[in-house]
């Protein structure tokens, strides 16, 4: 654990990312206390610029506090990002494990299936899914998971292919362990590190995807979210720039921090890999 931390901390960017991420998490968790009441309620005069009327980041066309919207939106963005990543991990690990462990024609079928999902325009599919199943938090999570699992399946399959012929797996087979317990008990724990790295990047792209969906008006109508804030600021950008600028910065910082943490995790979990980021070969 100590070496893990040391390797992680050697990457400066990753530490910065972690600090930002923790701050965002704190804002998300404390939003109901910092900004009590619903973020949908009127809090001041409409179109108040930042700093005026006691509104740190200004108000929108209905006098709602933009800062409150961002704080409450953080809860939704992080929640959707985390849950949809878990769902796509379940799908991806399941399919990847089956393909990599069984091999043969099963592998072929699963990989063609995965390729299909990688070929089609995934954002269009996500829009279609959310629109047809009506925009709710469940359908959004489902749609994001459906379009995000293929990279997981590919990575897990590659790991399983290389691990299944190792000696410790063969030993378990000779001992008569069941397939399920070999897959879950022997192979999966050894394939975890690329999955961990991938999942932090997936949370990041899930947050981007959610914001894009709610920007298009496909957000859960009962949940305040960053994409919705930007979407509602779009048509009034000439008079109220703050409505779209600040939520965008929130998305940028959160996604950036997750990407940086992902790189740090990758360094920490694969310490033998050459470090050539930052342009130094």
């Amino acid at each position, binding site marked *: 654990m100590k070496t893990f931390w040391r390797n992680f901390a050697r990457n400066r960017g990753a530490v910065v990312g972690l600090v930002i991420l923790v701050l965002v998490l704190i804002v998300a968790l404390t939003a109901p206390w910092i900004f009590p009441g619903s973020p949908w309620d009127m809090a001041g005069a409409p179109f108040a610029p930042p700093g005026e009327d006691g509104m740190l980041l200004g108000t929108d066309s209905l006098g709602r506090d933009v800062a409150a919207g961002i704080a409450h939106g953080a809860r939704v963005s992080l929640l959707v990002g985390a849950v949809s990543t878990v769902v796509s991990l379940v799908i991806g690990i399941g399919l990847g494990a089956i393909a990599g462990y069984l091999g043969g024609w099963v592998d072929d079928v699963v990989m063609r299936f995965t390729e299909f999902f990688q070929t089609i325009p995934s954002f269009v599919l996500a829009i279609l899914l959310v629109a047809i199943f009506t925009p709710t938090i469940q359908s959004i999570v489902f749609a994001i998971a459906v379009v995000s699992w293929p990279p997981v399946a590919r990575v897990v399959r590659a790991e399983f292919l290389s691990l299944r012929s190792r000696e410790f797996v063969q030993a378990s087979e000779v001992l008569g362990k069941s397939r399920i317990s070999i897959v879950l008990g022997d192979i999966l724990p050894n394939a975890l590190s690329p999955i961990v790295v991938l999942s932090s990047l997936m949370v990041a792209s899930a947050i981007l995807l959610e914001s894009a969906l709610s920007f298009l008006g496909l957000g859960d109508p009962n949940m305040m979210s960053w994409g919705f804030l*930007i979407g509602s600021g779009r048509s009034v950008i000439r008079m109220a720039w703050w409505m779209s600028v600040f939520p965008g910065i929130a*998305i*940028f910082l959160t996604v950036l921090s997750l990407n940086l943490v992902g790189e740090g995790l990758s360094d920490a979990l694969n310490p033998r890999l050459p470090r050539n980021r930052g342009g130094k070969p």
Partner: protein
Amino acid sequence: MELSRLPAYLAGRLVKAAIVILAIVVCNFFLIHAAPGDPASIIAGQSGSADARFLEQLRAQFGLDQPLYVQLWMYLKGVLTLDLGFSHRQQASVAALVWDRLPATLLLTGAAFIFAIVLGVTMGALAARRVGTWWDSIITVLALAFYATPLFWVGLMLVLLFSVTLEWLPSFGMMSVGVEMSGIGKVLDVGKHLLLPALTLGLFYVAVYARLSRATMLEVADQDFVKTARAKGVPEGRILRRHILRNAMLPVITFAGIQAGQLIGGSILVETVFAWPGIGRLAFEALLARDYQVLMGVFFCTSVMVVLFNLITDLLYAVVDPRVEVS
């Protein structure tokens, strides 16, 4: 590749592409049926005005009273004859609507793609020649930043800067409204409107291609044939152009093929921000009206575009690179 084997290779690719398109049609079909509620009212677009008689008529027309496999067959037959359904909202066939909007989207994605390839590869090449300098760091930081910025927000910020504050460029549409123009004037006008959307869509890929071409150029520059060329006394500029850049382009081509779907997905967002009259804007309008027939038409059409683009990159790759095994 031997030219005699090209037809077989192409045929294999075509079959694969056809299977993907068929799968998308089946996917569309089951989506209509998986949706909560009556498929007939979904086809009608849940317009609210859909009365019982109209729904009954739709049920008969789409054979919704028939078993599922008969329905699937009817649907497939329809799509294969390019009948993508009818939008009762817009009182036009979906195929005509999509066809009408296609040129604008092709112009936007094409411009963004060329912009990204040219600028990205140039930046990557410069970075590869100056490894470890500030150029290098700039590209890394840019890539990191563009990976984290929502596309639609970049668009809005560009509007804020170039249209609202500086008033240099128009912020929406494809042509100036109410001005009669022809010839060069018209082209310039469209170009002015195209600049911001294409920039928005392309910037992300500039960063991606810059990183990718930097990595591959460094890799190629170390290989024996480059050393040989250098030993023969070939001028450095020529080595870069003829030997390194050519080979380093191959992974960029492959990657471009893989990302085609993302580019098209991104164009939906960009077209929404800039009111660019393409397929993406059509999808957004259909979304607001819950016109599912049109949405499915857009999904089908964009998928076909991606498949075609992949075919082209495959072909390009096979022609450019003599080492590609065609099996």
